[in-house]
């Protein structure tokens, strides 16, 4: 089945008088399935925002094509835009108007009533300040208002460019919960971010972008597993004796300072402890050698770095 968001061979080259040509996206292929949270990762300048702008018809691709909810973005975006909510970078709204009035003005474009505006303001935690001018809002409040604007259409698809930008820790947790709940409701949430731990905690699937290309994509666990084999970290008072015991037990391992990195599944921890205990060696630490998204991200983006 085709994805809710389909990107095929997307290429975008900017031509600027002074800086010459810049290749922002270089043959990107991407398929985002329906429902859940999809994390779109990449370092600064990887092409995330350009891709999002292409998806929303703000930027015309140099090559390739984008489809959103089955519609070709170039010709049919207007037919599906009512089902898509979005934030591109920092959302900009009229600073002298109140948060409520800004949402009401946007809502009028799609016949959205005041009740829905009130619901959304409540959901993003701005009900108390809804009547204040946006210029008096903090950066985080503006970001939340932007998320509110994106939710206004009760969209099937949300395309959010760095929605946690500028938020305080409590705000980040709120956005994380909001994104999860939106994903659980069956909406497709496509979220770009450079806060990798956030994406790891929120997303079901990820795509990692580097230099305008997708270098990894799939369910978070798969991408994590693809980065490095999982294992166990073992510490004990006599690492050399521990190494001898593991070698005798036929377990692959490597020394990592005063720790032993055992290349077995964390589910096999009992086998490791038994092998060591049989030789009278007792552990001071045993933990899974987990790979986080940041490690995978850095490894993947490093591999495709400048040659």
């Amino acid at each position: 089945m085709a994805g809710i968001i389909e990107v095929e061979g997307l290429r975008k080259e900017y031509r600027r008088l002074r800086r010459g040509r810049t290749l922002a996206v270089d043959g990107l292929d991407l398929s985002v399935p329906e429902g859940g949270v999809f994390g779109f990762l990449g370092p600064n300048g990887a092409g995330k925002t350009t891709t999002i702008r292409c998806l929303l018809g703000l930027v015309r691709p140099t090559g390739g094509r984008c489809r959103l909810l089955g519609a070709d973005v170039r010709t049919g975006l207007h037919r599906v835009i009512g089902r898509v909510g979005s934030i591109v970078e920092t959302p900009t709204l009229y600073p002298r108007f109140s948060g409520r009035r800004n949402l009401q003005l946007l809502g009028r474009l799609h016949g959205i009533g005041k009740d829905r505006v009130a619901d959304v303001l409540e959901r993003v935690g701005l009900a108390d300040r809804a009547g204040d001018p946006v210029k008096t809002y903090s950066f985080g409040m503006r970001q939340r208002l932007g998320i509110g604007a994106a939710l206004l259409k009760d969209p099937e698809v949300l395309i959010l460019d760095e929605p946690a930008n500028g938020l305080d820790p409590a705000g980040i947790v709120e956005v994380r919960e909001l994104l999860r709940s939106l994903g659980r409701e069956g909406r497709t949430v496509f979220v770009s971010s450079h806060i990798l731990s956030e994406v790891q905690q929120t997303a079901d699937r990820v795509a990692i972008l580097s230099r305008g290309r997708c270098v990894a994509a799939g369910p978070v666990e798969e991408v994590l597993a693809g980065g490095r084999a999982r294992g166990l970290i073992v510490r004990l008072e006599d690492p050399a004796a521990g190494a001898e015991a593991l070698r005798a037990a036929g377990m692959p391992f490597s020394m990592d300072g005063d720790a032993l990195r055992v290349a077995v599944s964390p589910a096999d921890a009992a086998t490791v402890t038994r092998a060591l205990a049989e030789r009278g060696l007792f552990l001071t630490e045993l933990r899974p050698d987990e790979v986080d998204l940041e490690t995978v991200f850095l490894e993947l983006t490093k591999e495709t770095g400048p040659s």
Partner: protein
Amino acid sequence: MLARRLVLVFLLMALIGIVLGGLIVAVNSRRPSASDLASARQQLEQSRAACEQEVRASPEEYGLPPGVKPDGFCRETLRLEYFFGDKRFHLSGLRNVFLGTSFILTVGGLLLGASFIGAEWHAGTLTTLLTWEPRRLRVFLAKLSAAVVVVFLLALVLQAILGLVLAAIAALRGTTEGTGGSWLRSVSGVALRSAALAVMAAVIGFSVATIGRNTAAALGTALVYLAVVERLIEALRPPWQRWLVGNNSVLFLTGERDAFRWLNRSMLGAAALLGSYTVALIVVALVAFRERDVT
């Protein structure tokens, strides 16, 4: 859109200007006293008598048209108000007032038109809008229409308020002599053409601001063009003057073809030329708006 600060500021400043102008006119407008009038009538009688005598003696020297009698000629030429130091405000001069305020309305139209889209580009709110309505042609035309309607109505309403204020002053402290049907048609024509010029300026400002994505760029371009480029063309290429915006705008506004005979164009011709320039600029702006990336 009407709540835009610039529109409100412009409206407020215009109203303050009208009130201040009205006060100045009201203070300076004064009807003559009975003794002033009596003295003036006496002087008028004497002057008309002298006039008739001189005209009868040498009608060619005075350019007396055939069929016009000297007494009629002198009655038309010499009027009572000439003899009492007329300080009354004459409503019949409203046309000239509107010709003067047209410049302010045109500059205001340029400013408002440019800011209608320039401010949106500058603030980035247009990006948000385009994620709600991606059909750029619609967005462009909707915004342009709003600018046209607001500027046209604003220009008409302000002129109507100014006209009413001055009419009240004329009725109370001045004179409404010479304000018949033809006067009303002439004044209305100038008011409408003045509003049309303000709209044209607004469309030009809007279009240039769309291309430059900035209000200041639009205003700077327009002012440099009118104040420098057209003056240079006038100086270096006199035959090209007939194609300049400034000259054709004045011809269109005043309708005085005789004063612009060298343009070799009627008022409607000037309107058509200005209209074609405006439409061409709209097309260029629309293409730029549709095709360029929003980054």
